[in-house]
């Protein structure tokens, strides 16, 4: 088959990357980019010969598409919060606001992809694997869960840590126990706490920090609630006009992504729904026994605040680290919701409990699956014996 354009380019240069060619050391890079543009021509030689057209690459690209609304809104919100803090919002055009955010978010994304893909390529080459597309998603999720003021070298260190320790050490894409993007965030949260919480990290002020408007506070609603002052507009939180990590503020944009994931069948609606249920039930219980202003926050507000929606839609549903069985997904998601709200409200040190809740349940997901499968086997054995 004679190809055109890019295909021709790849065919022409293929011999250089094959065994014995002078660029063999970069073979995995070559293959990685080729399969980025084209479906792999490799066919099975035995066993099943019919394969689903949705391979790992398509799955990953769908997830990346699903976070686009969040990403775009995140960029806008970075600019919005910046000009709002300076009191210049009325006099700045929409385009300027967006471009300000775009220019601040872009370096984080570039660093995340450069470091992460660099390490993945190196490992693929050393081990003689193909490059997996797994990092395409992780690489965009990591910037979205970080505060805008995270120094770029910290992003690089966290990405390296999560790719090497949380992923490659366990055997690469598909073998990791924890969601790599959350590991990167947890790493930063514990390693550099001053850059991951407080009221100075969420809004980029640049060198105009001295000229903020009167009465301005850069704390997130949850950060404020900790100090006892519950002060936010819940609809601002829903649409996303609040300070927070780059991609987590707009529940609306996240819902768009969620619908996309559910319609395409990539994300599990069971996990999203059960996580929400868990949070609602726990939120109601805490409301019923509230003793401080934080506990009195209406339960449904929690769904819009902090990283809850983002975690439930994009993090908890990670097909690798989540529970695999259907019943397991309900249990897994429900417990994430329960733990997220408990950690958020009852532990003053960690207002962002969603991250820890998901990582904890990632750890237990294989155990949940084990018992679901065992229970199924037992029930069927019993039925077989009864019919026997």
């Amino acid at each position, binding site marked *: 088959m004679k190809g055109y354009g890019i295909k021709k380019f790849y065919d022409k240069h293929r011999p250089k990357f094959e065994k014995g060619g002078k660029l063999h050391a970069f073979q995995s890079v070559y293959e990685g980019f080729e399969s980025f543009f084209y479906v792999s021509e490799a066919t099975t030689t035995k066993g099943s010969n019919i394969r689903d057209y949705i391979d790992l690459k398509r799955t990953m690209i769908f997830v990346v598409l699903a976070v686009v609304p969040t990403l775009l809104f995140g960029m806008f919100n970075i600019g919005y919060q910046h000009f709002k803090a300076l009191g210049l919002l009325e006099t700045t055009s929409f385009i300027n606001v967006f471009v300000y955010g775009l220019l601040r978010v872009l370096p984080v994304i570039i660093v995340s992809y450069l470091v992460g893909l660099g390490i993945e390529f190196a490992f693929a080459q050393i081990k003689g694997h193909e490059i997996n597309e797994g990092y395409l998603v992780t690489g965009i999720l990591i910037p979205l869960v970080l505060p805008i003021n995270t*120094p770029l*070298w910290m992003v690089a*260190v966290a990405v390296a840590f999560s790719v090497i*320790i949380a992923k490659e*050490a366990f055997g690469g894409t598909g073998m990791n126990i924890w969601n790599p993007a959350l590991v990167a965030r947890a790493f930063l949260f*514990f*390693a*550099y*706490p001053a*850059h991951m919480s407080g009221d100075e990290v969420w809004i980029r002020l640049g060198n105009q920090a001295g000229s903020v408007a009167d009465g301005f506070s850069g704390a997130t609603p949850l950060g404020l609630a900790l100090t006892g002052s519950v002060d936010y507009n819940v609809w601002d939180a829903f649409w996303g006009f609040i300070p927070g990590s780059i991609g987590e503020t707009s529940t609306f944009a996240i819902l768009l992504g969620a619908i996309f994931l559910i319609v395409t069948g990539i994300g599990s609606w069971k996990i999203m729904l059960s996580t929400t249920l868990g949070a609602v039930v726990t939120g109601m219980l805490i409301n019923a026994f509230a003793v401080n202003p934080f506990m009195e926050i209406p339960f449904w507000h929690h769904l819009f605040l902090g990283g809850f929606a983002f975690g439930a839609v994009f993090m908890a549903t990670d097909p690798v680290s989540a529970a695999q069985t259907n019943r397991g997904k309900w249990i897994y998601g429900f417990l994430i919701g329960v733990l997220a709200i408990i950690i958020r409200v009852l532990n003053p040190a960690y207002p962002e409990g969603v991250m820890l809740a998901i990582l904890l349940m990632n750890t237990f997901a294989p155990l949940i699956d084990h018992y679901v499968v065992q229970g199924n086997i037992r029930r069927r054995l019993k039925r077989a014996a009864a019919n026997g």
Partner: protein
Amino acid sequence: MSDREHLFSRKNLDLLKNPLGPSNPITVQVLGICSALAVTAQIKPAVVMSISVVIVTALANLIISLLRNTIPNRIRIIVQLVVIASLVILVDQVLKAFVYDVSKQLSVFVGLIITNCIIMGRLEAFALANKPWPSFLDGLGNGAGYGLILIIVAFFRELLGSGSVLGYNVVEKIGLDKIGYENNGLMVLSPMALITVGIIIWIHRSRDRSLIEDK
């Protein structure tokens, strides 16, 4: 004539050398992890801890080996414990007398040397069945193998976590803090000790392939 071995014969030297590499108590046998996590936030306590463990393992091995033919088999664990406990108390008292601040930093972990599986393991596996001199070397080797890993872990944890080496602030000296570098708070917490030990095991196994189990 034939059973009189040279003091530093190849076999005896191996007893001393192997625990540093292919049969390291921490990275290969995965013993003594608890204290490896607890005392490695800084180099100084790790060094003191290592020396203490070397002394206790070497002397306990020697004493038990001397007594090995007189210890009734059924109460051997109690006898071993008495010997280890006495040695640990001696070490603890010496530390309190001469390096009080480090002793306070190590707190219960000096006392907990008693429960360090490496010591008991060597007594059971080696000293009870071997002559005093090889037993002494074996204790010395295993203590040193433990100490080696402890000090490597402590070096990285102190360097990356507190930015210093043996209390000397390297980061400030080079001026890294002025260009935005910050110490990694996670390195000071014990989970990172576990991960550091894990990385050492990873490197150790990929350098010495004979350590990798068959699947």
